[in-house]
């Protein structure tokens, strides 16, 4: 996506799922993949792209935003950088790596390079334990919890932008 289309998609809030962390698509490739992602404290660029893709599988965009656009990466980064992050940081580092290992094994590609249907297939396999064993299954449960917390939680935590999910389910608080 070039910058012009990127801005356009932001403006109309379309069904195209844009990332909520301030990556610029036209120079994303130039960012060092191992450096900390823009706007984040813990997640690397590489991890943030991967989490974007996973979040979009967990809550995909339709006429309401998906978890990627709603800010899942920002929420998870806050959790990892927060006072209790030490309980989760290693699990995220290992768990995210498992996704790429499994993806490479099955498709010969990184997870972010798979098409949506391949990604969906791999997430299902991770969820069932088939792709990453007990470790992968357990990490996916944690990830699922965090994505749901962010997406359906209070917008102040960064992953329910514009309270979109609350509008969707008509939650008035």
């Amino acid at each position, binding site marked *: 996506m070039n910058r012009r289309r990127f801005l356009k998609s932001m403006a109309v809030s379309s069904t195209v799922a844009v990332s909520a962390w301030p990556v610029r698509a036209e120079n994303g490739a130039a960012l060092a993949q191992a450096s900390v992602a823009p706007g984040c404290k813990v997640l690397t660029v590489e991890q943030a792209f991967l989490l974007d893709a996973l979040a979009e*599988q967990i*809550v995909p965009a*339709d006429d*309401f935003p998906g978890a990627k656009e709603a800010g899942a990466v920002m929420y998870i980064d806050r959790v990892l950088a927060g006072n209790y992050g030490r309980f989760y940081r290693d699990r995220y580092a290992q768990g995210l790596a498992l996704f790429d290992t499994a993806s490479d094994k099955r498709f010969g590609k990184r997870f972010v390079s798979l098409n949506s249907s391949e990604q969906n297939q791999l997430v299902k396999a991770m969820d069932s334990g088939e792709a990453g064993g007990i470790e992968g299954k357990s990490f996916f449960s944690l990830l699922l919890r965090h994505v749901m*917390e962010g997406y359906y*939680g209070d917008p102040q935590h960064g992953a329910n932008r514009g309270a979109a999910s609350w509008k969707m389910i008509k939650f008035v608080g």
Partner: protein
Amino acid sequence: MANQKVDVIVVGSGAGGGVMAKELATAGLSVVVFERGHVYTTANYNHDELESQYSVPPAYGPSVYDNPRTFRYTDREEATLSYPGINSKYGKTAAAVGGATLAYGAAAWRFKREDFRMKSTYGSIPGSSVEDWPIGYDDLEPYYEKAEYELGVSGLADADPFAEPRKKPFPLPPLPINRQGEIIRDAGRRLGWHPFPPPFAIITQPYHGRNACVQCSWCLAYACEAGAKSGTQITMLPIALKTGKCEVRANSFVTRITTDNQGRPNGVQYFDAKKQGHEQSADLVVVACSATETPRLLLNSANKFHPKGLGNSSDQVGKNLNDHTGADAFGLFDFEIPHDKGPGPSIAFNDWNHPKTRDVVGGGYIYNYYCTLPIEFASNRPPGAARWGKEHKDFQRKYFHRYLHLGSNCQAMPQERNRVDLDPKVRDAWGLPVARVTHELMELDHTIANFVMDKEEQLLREAGAIRVWRGGNGRGGVYDHQNGTCRMGDDAKSSVVNRYCQSHDVDNLFITDGSVLVTDAGFNPSLTIQAVSFWAADYIKKQWSGSAWREGKKG
């Protein structure tokens, strides 16, 4: 802080401790209340699922890293480390001024007559240490009434045909019925059951200078900014403080009860917020720190006079740790059920709590649950339904307002093997051995919960649910309703305190929290803990005038 000797130290400011502080201070005794948690004010209260008592970290303490515990199902396994909110086996009880009552659900039940006479009613139960209480419903009735009137309990007298007789009506009318309540009321009637509005320590009209409930959706696990929920921080402690005889020492963690050269308690050692050590002397010590922390404090207070722990000549301190099983059932509907009025529960049934048929041991009341919140709903799906993806999102959208959650607190059987003791290795931030919790449910506990869930599913189907499923209980673990670790009894060999919550071993030590409950009931315990605390306070006040406990004179 200068150590000026006081009459009474109360350790813990929750349900039991708050009552004790208020009763003794208003009787003219000087009291220091120790509370390890903070003072929270409405500035700290919020409506946010990620900042509730059930979140990580729990909004109202205890602080996560300072307060580990260890947990194991049985003593055949190694206990594993757990932290508040991080490991689900760590109880959710707040550490705050007001204790758990700061953010509780405020259900305010009287136990039934049978609940005090479980062994007589059902006989011995293999594997269980079930016993009768040394006191009964009639002993506590005046104290239940006192608790209801001082807290401001809302409810409707005579609406529950299975309730024990009461001398006075509830001080306040019940919470108004909501749409969920209407649906299960009508369905229940069609089944021949007996619906009624459940009692809550939530005021429904202005009462004692406090404002009425505004019926928001954020109740259980949230502190009440309206001031309608009757936690001790807004009911008991302000009255105690107003006497000028009581001090609440927050952020102060009591590590040991000290004794004199005859082995009688004479004060406590504690750390302040800066982890500086201090001592406080008193003639009488009341412990009310919850069924986990109370036995821990007594065991950590072992000395040459009390080698097994203070008040533990019976070796019963910490044993018989018990908690309710949950019995939840969920229904989906093809019509809208608006979340129109909080806190949520507005109809209950007691038909399956000690049913006359006796086809179950104990049982539990059934009620429509607290208002469902978005994250909570996202994590609850019927078996086989998608837990993520497009299908999950569609479900969330379609059913958030077509959903009904029934809940219950089912009686579980006490077992001696379930216990709190001191972990041999793990220490907390103050260097003290932490509580090691050993807890595993027995088969009968699951049977009782399944019995109640069968009834809930029946009710949901009658109400027109198109899909029904149930929750479950894991292998073990204790949560908000923990009890039983310093049981009361007439026999000093088999119980920790007598009928007045007084230690069998040392006469100037009392315990007034969930620890003294001999058995739990199919009801939330807070009103009973408070009635028992009023009862024990009455005894202390009567005995005090003879100054039996003063200056170490043996009573």
